[in-house]
């Protein structure tokens, strides 16, 4: 596995081909309209890697794209949505049509499952979910959770949830060095727990920096290279979602995606073709959504908030 002398920098194409296998359990980082690994997701779409099980806390546009392209068998999460931009329509439709399995948890429940995974434990207790149908109607019954009383307390039940250990995690961050040390700015969501719980991880980033920089300020490292398999440099790799300090989310494009996802059918296929499948990589996509001018405006919008 990882050594501290070998560069893991590669293209998205190479990283996805090497580490994302058909039928694998894929962990997804980011939340809603923040720091979603869009460039890596587009690459999975272009390579048509199917039969996926997707895990996350909130799953949003990246998951919706993979579901819409028919590449997903099952999802496990606290939510599928884009908040003010609406629900994840392709996901919703697939569940309503009975073609996608889904397992409901809360956000704390999912992050607790990743926490168990990253600490090498088989399960994690939580005091969330008690009395709810997330437990009482759990499709896996006793395989999905176990209730037990605190052995040292009186009527203090907890729900034990199984560890979540994805085969591969994908996240997008502000910076990583060539070895795979990752710096996350702004909120971290569940990314750190999830990456450390996963058997492999691909990190795309706005900028690859030198590991000399990491060693000068090691306290800034959110995830050390031990857990990271590949580093992909992709500026604006989270578009149309936001990346803290780098750029704001792209309301216009999110609204356009949501309209296509809601409409479905040909309109959705056209979106996939125009913005993903017909693109020669993510830089080509960035040209198609408005290029330098648009991206500059999103950068300025973020700077205005700093």
């Amino acid at each position: 596995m990882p050594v501290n002398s070998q560069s893991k920098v590669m293209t998205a194409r190479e990283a996805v081909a090497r580490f994302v296998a058909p039928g694998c359990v894929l962990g997804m980082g980011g939340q809603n309209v923040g720091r979603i690994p869009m460039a890596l997701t587009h690459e999975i779409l272009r390579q048509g890697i199917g039969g996926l099980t997707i895990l996350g806390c909130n799953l949003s546009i990246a998951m919706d794209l993979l579901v819409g392209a028919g590449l997903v068998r099952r999802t496990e999460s606290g939510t599928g949505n884009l908040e003010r931009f609406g629900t994840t329509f392709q996901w919703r439709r697939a569940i309503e049509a009975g073609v996608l399995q889904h397992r409901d948890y809360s956000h704390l429940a999912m992050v607790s499952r990743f926490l168990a995974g990253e600490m090498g434990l088989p399960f994690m207790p939580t005091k969330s979910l008690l009395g709810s149908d997330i437990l009482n109607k759990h499709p896996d019954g006793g395989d999905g959770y176990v209730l037990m009383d605190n052995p040292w307390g009186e009527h203090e039940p907890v729900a034990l949830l199984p560890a979540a250990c994805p085969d591969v995690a994908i996240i997008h961050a502000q910076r990583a060095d060539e070895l795979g040390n990752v710096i996350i700015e702004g909120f971290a969501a569940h990314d750190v727990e999830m990456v450390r719980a996963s058997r492999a991880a691909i990190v795309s980033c706005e900028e690859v920096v030198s590991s000399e920089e990491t060693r000068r300020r090691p306290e800034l490292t959110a995830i050390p290279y031990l857990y990271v398999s590949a580093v992909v440099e992709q500026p604006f790799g989270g578009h149309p979602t936001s990346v803290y300090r780098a750029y704001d989310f792209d309301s216009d494009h999110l609204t356009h995606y949501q309209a296509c996802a809601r409409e479905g059918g040909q309109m959705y296929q056209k979106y996939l073709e125009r913005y993903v499948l017909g693109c020669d990589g993510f830089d080509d996509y960035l040209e198609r959504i408005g290029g330098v001018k648009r991206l500059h405006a999103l950068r300025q919008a973020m700077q205005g908030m700093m």
Partner: protein
Amino acid sequence: MTVDAPISTDYTANELMVIEASRHINDGDMVLAGTGMPLIAITLAQKSHAPHLCAVVETGIIDPELLPSPVSVSDPRIQYRAVKLGSLRDALACVLQRGMIDIGMIGGAQIDQFANVNSTVIGDYAAPRVRFPGSGGANDVASHSRRLLIITRHEKRRFPERVDYITSPGYIDGPDGRRKAGLPTPQQDITIVTDLCVMEIDKGVGRLKVAALMPGVTLDRVLDNTLFKPLVAERLAQVEPPSEEYIRILREEVDPQRVYFRGAGEG
């Protein structure tokens, strides 16, 4: 900026709903708010009567200055000048589950007579007619907050006798419901603020009671728009209309881009 201020005559039902919700936040409260109207209500509270509230947002944001018109719990507009930008675990486990949240605020698609909230499915869970986004942090907020406040539009279909799916537990099936389930806040205060009224949980029976009506709204109108039969307070209060100053703050400082509110008379 209280009762002495001039009373506004130019406001919408949605605006008063959010203002009334914000009144339940005390200065100095530690608040965890979900996306949408709850985020707007805490932004308003921070800019008016509760400048010292400590907002905690589930994505890991602790005590930010809330900028106008946030649309998501991942929006950079709610990360400004925070004291910590951490993880979901920092917010939901180390603050919320740890028992530190005074008041949690969520929305919901369906709320029943026991204040159980459904944000998961309409119909059979195994074969849903309509699939909603799911719990998110709502189950966690409903499980662990000392006080729970739910903001929602008052429509008949949103208030069934029993929710199709308990995403976030209220009193579950009666006064002992939370205790029997082992929830850490068995005697939680629960308030529902809608565009028609304010309901509160009656802990003696574990059911919702209409406590106050919005100005100009009759009790019959509330009952006509509620599928379950709520209890009714003996002395039914009227929600105070907003001051001009609150309306100004809401329109100019909280949602100047009108992401959440259109003009007066529009909704």
